[in-house]
């Protein structure tokens, strides 16, 4: 792909956004912002940002911050985007670890294992991963979101409409984030737009705990 052709003001704006996100959230990829501004133009770029904000707000109010992050991560994953998929899954996993002292079954490395599977098989695996009673609500929401995405159901309830909004908005988002999302590795994930990503000590503890559990499991 040829790099985006940006005027100086747009280049400066993309860099300012990138720097702000790095400082507030501990991570960002400049090329995603540049690509979004080039592909969508200013107005649509701002509309996309607003839509993403509205969906996140609805999800948080309805399901809490942690499940909101996982729902977005899975919506992006179905579109094959590691940038949003890994990033929002890491955010949910870090919040679970910080607030509940628990390693959540979904993590960027787990999502990376689901990406190559046929979608129905990936959904079966997701249901297995979320088998614990503590994940029952998220399991139900993700299964329903999958039915809606696959066209096996149409939105009927309020939950359905909120899930559909997440799906449609993160399908639009992936149009631009895929420039990084196709090749990003799970170990390079960061928390897009969330302050928990700035807590590098938490991230180190989380990764250590995850690695220790993997050793025990072996």
């Amino acid at each position, binding site marked *: 792909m040829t790099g985006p052709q940006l005027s100086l003001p747009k280049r400066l704006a993309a860099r300012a956004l990138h720097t702000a996100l790095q400082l507030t959230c501990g991570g960002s990829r400049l090329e995603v912002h540049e690509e979004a501004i080039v592909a969508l133009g200013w107005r649509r770029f701002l509309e996309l940002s607003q839509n993403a904000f509205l969906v996140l707000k609805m999800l948080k109010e309805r399901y809490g911050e942690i499940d909101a992050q996982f729902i977005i991560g899975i919506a992006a994953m179905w579109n094959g985007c590691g940038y949003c998929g890994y990033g929002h899954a890491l955010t949910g996993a870090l919040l679970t670890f910080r607030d509940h002292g628990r390693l959540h079954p979904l993590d960027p490395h787990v999502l990376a294992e689901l*990406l190559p599977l046929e979608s129905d098989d990936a959904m079966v695996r997701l249901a297995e991963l979320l088998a614990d009673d503590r994940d029952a609500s998220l399991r139900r929401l993700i299964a329903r979101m999958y039915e809606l*995405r696959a066209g096996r159901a149409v*939105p009927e309830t309020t939950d359905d409409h*909120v899930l559909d909004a997440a799906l449609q*908005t993160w*399908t*639009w988002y992936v149009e631009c984030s895929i420039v990084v999302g196709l090749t990003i590795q799970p170990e390079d994930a960061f928390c897009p737009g969330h302050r928990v990503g700035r807590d590098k000590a938490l991230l180190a503890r989380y990764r250590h705990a995850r690695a220790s559990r993997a050793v025990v499991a072996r």
Partner: protein
Amino acid sequence: MDPCSDQPERVSARRVRVRLEGVLDRDQIDQLRPKLLDAIDRLPRRGELLLDLVEVTECAIAACRALALVQRKVRASGARTAYLTARARIHGAAWWIVHASRDPHAMPVIHMDQAEQWLQGDAQRLDELHARSTRAIERARHRCAQEGVER
């Protein structure tokens, strides 16, 4: 299986279908390119291209780049394109290809109903994505507000 064993197939007066399988690499796409572009050239104005990637298991980034170059040629022909996929990773590759090609009439889809709807429609991809997201949010907000009132 050699993915190029499937030649571009003229399935109707307006549509060419190509079915690829297995692991895609750049050489395979380069081999396919002249046959595909020839088939597209023979389509009437506003033809339809269905790229069936349901049986594709891997798509290297070099193959994505090669397909994006092919898609740029398709864009010039004015044809509409649907990339049909069954795996998230391949769906991501299709997003990468349509984005890189800057073809507003190419769209990744996950089932044939979606493919038919896209191929027979008129919308451009970025307009469609924007409209779907905004419409879905409006409906969701309306339902949430209604629920709040009922409580």
